[in-house]
């Protein structure tokens, strides 16, 4: 039954369990709030969401966050008494809050500032002194200004309840209440950056981007985090052709309202001084197009000399779907050898992970929060895909039991039971789990614990099987899918969640499921089979465990070309460098580990960053019609340049080309804001 209620004379119908504050918002009526935050729940601490219930099951002035919508409710948000009370709440908060909005670094994107102005509190009546606090050092990423605190408890609730870490919280009572750590120190919580987004005022601010500009100075765009395979939504802020900071963007399907610190702060490479921004042939700088043309010439002559099979392209899962498609197609047309999967550890299991998912068994990260039983095999979310650990914690908080089968010493921010088993044992253990019979297979010394897992699965309503790809092989990934299949056959709504190493590992395997492992490439280079290598956004060097071998292999090459936006080792060793624009400049489609293709929009135009030196000169120094350094191609465009052809004219044409050339990608044409799921064609 969906309750019908009236708020400010508007008839509203909402889902059962919707809070009045959210019901109002769904109808475009914004009720002020400080402590209320959907993900953290309602606690009724700040009292600023007071509204008047005129008729229905509840009457009088109540906090709209604490009351669930019910049939027949009549609510007035503009009742005089409620408005006066809310005005007082703001006045009380402002008793101790600094009056420095015009020069405060939070000014302009401060909820407290907005609601103070909106609430009509402009004149200070309180004549007493302000309470002041000492600020703390919380590490290199977050600034602490406790004097600004209005005690909404969002930070302590997020930190301790939502994340499960205890080194930041609330101390003291009454007006001496203090939010911080027991003593100065780096925050231990790997999700602590969310305090910045959560704080309704400027107690916690982003330290690296402090004083780099006002919110309205930035070019702001939602994008996809490319740090791991989860594809969390991020808000990119850019200024002067540089990324200033990343924040969490809301995604109902993937990450909810938060992101991890690794994603938030993992963008320094894009602003690196060493980032390739100019084409380079040998030691000579030139325009990217010219460098590409020179590379094309070398590749042509080498192909003539040694045959097309002596030329290889190395790509990676950090490239966009467009880039991977463009370069894969180039290899196909030229009969060059393509190595687009550069993660040695995940090479065995990842293809099985992609083929194991189906529209029936797939589950979004947000939905993992509603699981009532989670079994993680060979997966360490906190290390491999941090936000997943946070989703698992929410499931655990709601009562889910969590189990792990892993050989490693796991530390997760919630309780779980671990079966300590070597990776090669896991297949047997998984295949022994039966929906109906006694525990079978070869559980051996783990029989007791495995029986408990089986029992828990049987008694669960919505179990999720998590499977990593870093330490286990193909057979484990298949066994996880097999288990899910058995349980589903037995009418148990079981879901499957794999972790994958890179932002577009899934996308790369969608385009070509035949993984050419990177060690094959290295051996082929070393043996002299491959004479020329084009490294396109390749992490071959970072991922390689045998650097000596790779060094020998690279030295054996006649020609190394690197097309990258990152200052990698291969770029510094390359004979020809083609600088390409980053995801923040070119945008791109990324397919996360649950098959969800999402468009990451470009945040700013590519080009040389504008530097304000303070020396008296005013940018731009050079007057011209084009952006200085703005001639970097997108990584996908470089594929056409290397082929000596004109690339598709723009992103639209590129999409046309890609969906035609790779029919599996067709769903991206109808991609909504939440992305679209793409499964391999059967």
């Amino acid at each position, binding site marked *: 039954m969906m309750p019908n209620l009236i708020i400010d004379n508007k008839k509203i119908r909402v889902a059962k369990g919707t809070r009045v504050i959210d019901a109002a918002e769904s109808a475009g009526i914004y009720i002020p709030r400080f402590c209320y935050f959907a993900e953290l729940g309602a606690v*009724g*601490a*700040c*009292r*600023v969401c*007071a509204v008047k219930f005129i008729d229905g099951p509840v009457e009088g*002035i109540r*906090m709209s966050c*604490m009351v669930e919508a019910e049939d027949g409710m009549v609510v007035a948000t503009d009742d005089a008494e409620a408005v*006066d*009370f809310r005005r*007082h*709440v703001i006045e*009380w*908060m402002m*008793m*101790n809050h600094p009056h420095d909005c015009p020069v405060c670094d939070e000014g302009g994107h401060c909820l407290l500032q907005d609601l103070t102005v909106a609430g009509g509190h402009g004149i200070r*009546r*309180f*004549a*007493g*002194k302000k309470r002041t606090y000492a600020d703390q050092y919380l590490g290199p990423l977050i600034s602490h200004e406790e004097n600004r605190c*209005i*005690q909404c*408890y969002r930070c302590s609730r997020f930190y301790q309840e939502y994340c499960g870490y205890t080194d930041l919280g*609330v101390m*003291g*009572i*009454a*007006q*001496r*209440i203090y939010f911080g750590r027991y003593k100065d120190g780096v925050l231990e919580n790997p999700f602590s950056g969310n305090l910045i987004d959560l704080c309704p005022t400027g107690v916690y601010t982003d330290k690296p981007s402090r004083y780099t500009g006002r919110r309205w100075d930035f070019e702001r765009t939602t994008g996809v985090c490319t740090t791991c395979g989860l594809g969390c939504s991020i808000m990119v802020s850019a200024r002067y052709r540089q990324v200033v900071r990343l924040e969490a963007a809301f995604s109902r399907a993937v990450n909810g309202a938060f992101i991890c610190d690794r994603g938030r702060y993992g963008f320094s490479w894009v602003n690196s001084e060493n980032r390739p921004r100019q084409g380079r042939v040998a030691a000579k700088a030139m325009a990217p197009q010219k460098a590409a043309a020179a590379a094309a010439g070398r590749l042509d002559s080498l192909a003539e000399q040694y045959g097309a099979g002596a030329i290889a392209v190395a790509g990676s899962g950090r490239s966009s779907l467009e880039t991977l498609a463009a370069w894969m197609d180039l290899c196909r047309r030229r009969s060059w050898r393509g190595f687009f999967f550069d993660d040695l550890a995940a090479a065995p299991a990842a293809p099985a992970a992609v083929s194991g998912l189906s529209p029936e068994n797939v589950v979004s990260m947000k939905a993992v929060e509603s699981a009532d039983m989670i079994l993680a095999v060979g997966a360490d979310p906190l290390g491999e895909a941090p936000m997943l650990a946070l989703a698992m914690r929410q499931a655990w908080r709601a009562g889910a039991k969590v189990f792990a089968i892993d050989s490693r010493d796991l530390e997760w921010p919630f309780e779980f039971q671990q079966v300590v088993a070597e990776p090669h044992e896991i297949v047997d253990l998984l295949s022994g789990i039966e929906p109906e019979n006694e525990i079978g297979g070869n559980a051996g010394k783990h029989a007791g614990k495995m029986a408990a897992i089986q029992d828990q699965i049987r008694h669960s309503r919505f179990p999720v099987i998590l499977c990593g790809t870093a330490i286990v092989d193909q057979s484990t990934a298949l066994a996880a899918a097999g288990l899910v299949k058995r349980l589903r056959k037995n009418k148990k709504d079981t879901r499957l969640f794999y972790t994958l190493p890179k932002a577009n590992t899934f996308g790369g395997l969608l385009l070509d499921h035949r993984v050419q492992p990177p060690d094959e490439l290295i051996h082929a280079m070393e043996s002299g089979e491959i004479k020329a290598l084009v490294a396109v956004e390749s992490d071959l060097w970072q991922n390689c465990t045998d650097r000596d071998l790779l060094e020998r292999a690279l030295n054996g090459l006649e020609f190394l070309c690197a097309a990258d936006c990152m200052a990698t080792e291969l770029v510094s060793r390359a004979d020809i460098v083609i600088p390409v624009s980053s995801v923040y400049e070119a945008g791109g489609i990324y397919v996360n580990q649950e098959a969800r293709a999402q468009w990451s929009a470009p945040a700013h135009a590519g080009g040389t960053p504008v530097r304000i030196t303070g020396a008296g000169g005013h940018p731009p120094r050079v007057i011209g019609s084009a952006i200085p350094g703005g001639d970097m191609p997108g990584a996908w465009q470089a594929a056409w340049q290397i082929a000596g052809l004109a690339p598709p004219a723009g992103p639209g044409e590129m999409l046309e080309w890609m969906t035609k050339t790779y029919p599996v990608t067709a769903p991206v044409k109808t991609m909504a804001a939440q992305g679209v799921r793409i499964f391999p064609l059967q």
Partner: protein
Amino acid sequence: MHPRVLLKNRKSGRIATIDEYRQSGGYQALENAFVKNDPPPGDIRETLLEARLLGRGGAGFPIGKKMSTVPDNAPHPRYLVCNADEMEPGTFKDRVLIHADPHQLIEGIVLAARAIEAEIAVIFIRREYENAARILEREIQVALGAGLAGKNILGSGHDCELVVHRSAGRYICGEGTALTNALEGKRANPRRPPPYPTTSGLWQRPTEVQNVETLCCVPHVISNGAPWFRSLALTENGAGTKVFSVSGRVNHPGCFELPMGIRLSELIEEHAGGMVPGSRFKACMPGGASTRLMPGSMYHLRLDYSEMEKNGYRLGTGAIMVFDHKTCLVQAAANLMTFFVRESCGWCTPCREGLPYILDLLKRIEAGQGRAEYIEMIRKMCGHMKYSYCAFAPGAVAPVQALIEDFHAEVTDHIENQGCPFKNRQSGENDAESHY
């Protein structure tokens, strides 16, 4: 002379022993309830309800009614918490009750636990009551030795484990739900029902929180029956006796057990020795610091929950603080408010920030810096306290509300003459900002 029930074994300088308590009829109700199952738990609840025994901790909620909200099929273990965190300013009856007759409380706890079939009873005691805590710990051992508590009470197969827990020490811990959080090791912030503690309290188990005095009444109600208990009161709707803590400008301040419904005038004149020489009654706090000031016009009011409520007052804990005609009520209100400002748990904005605001205004008025608009500001803010998270802030402003309504002239006198009419103060003596 009025009959004494709870304090009949009170002795000068020592507690009543278990033998003395037994001689006065003690532990008879417990024996019957456990050995003969007479009365069974359901009847205990019923009798308490019929007796109209109201919670003596301040709220005056019927104990029988509260007990009946524990569902029959509620899970175990269930908890009974004896609230001995007596921190309401002016209140000291619980301490006197424990020091006078500890076994009366122990029997009351075990019987009340029986009524809701609770296996664990916790005495949450104020840390300043170290002597009382030690008395209880010692006497609990005595009761355990006599088989009157602990495992398998008197061979009945029923248990009631008794735990004495010393509070970490905050006023808000006396609030039932904050007390629950404190016992769980959390911050002592109140919890907002639902769920109610009687269905989901300590560690999500049914938990009944009762005041010391209430629990002390229980054995007497069970032994002598509901009609007897009701007949103790002087009013039609009242029941039992009340232990009043009297302080202030009277000749003999102290603890007096008197029938419910006794007149304030009789309490002061007959039992507390009257006003000190040269003092005239001006006002009193009828039930601790979080109740409305009662002016002289209420001097003959009957002290009984319903009688007082009819007149807009609360009996609260029955702590009567008497002010004479020489006392400045603005200063008294500011003094009380200083306490509440310090003791706010800090959870919600009106209480945490609004009370200090009101205190600041009161101090300014008292210091001769008052402005006419302050009265309206105070009135509005006090009125808004009813929208705070728990009952703390509305209680904290009750004396102030009475001040600006019933003693308006005194407040305006401060403002118009820019100073306290009760003092011939040197300037700078009472800086409005130097309190916190």
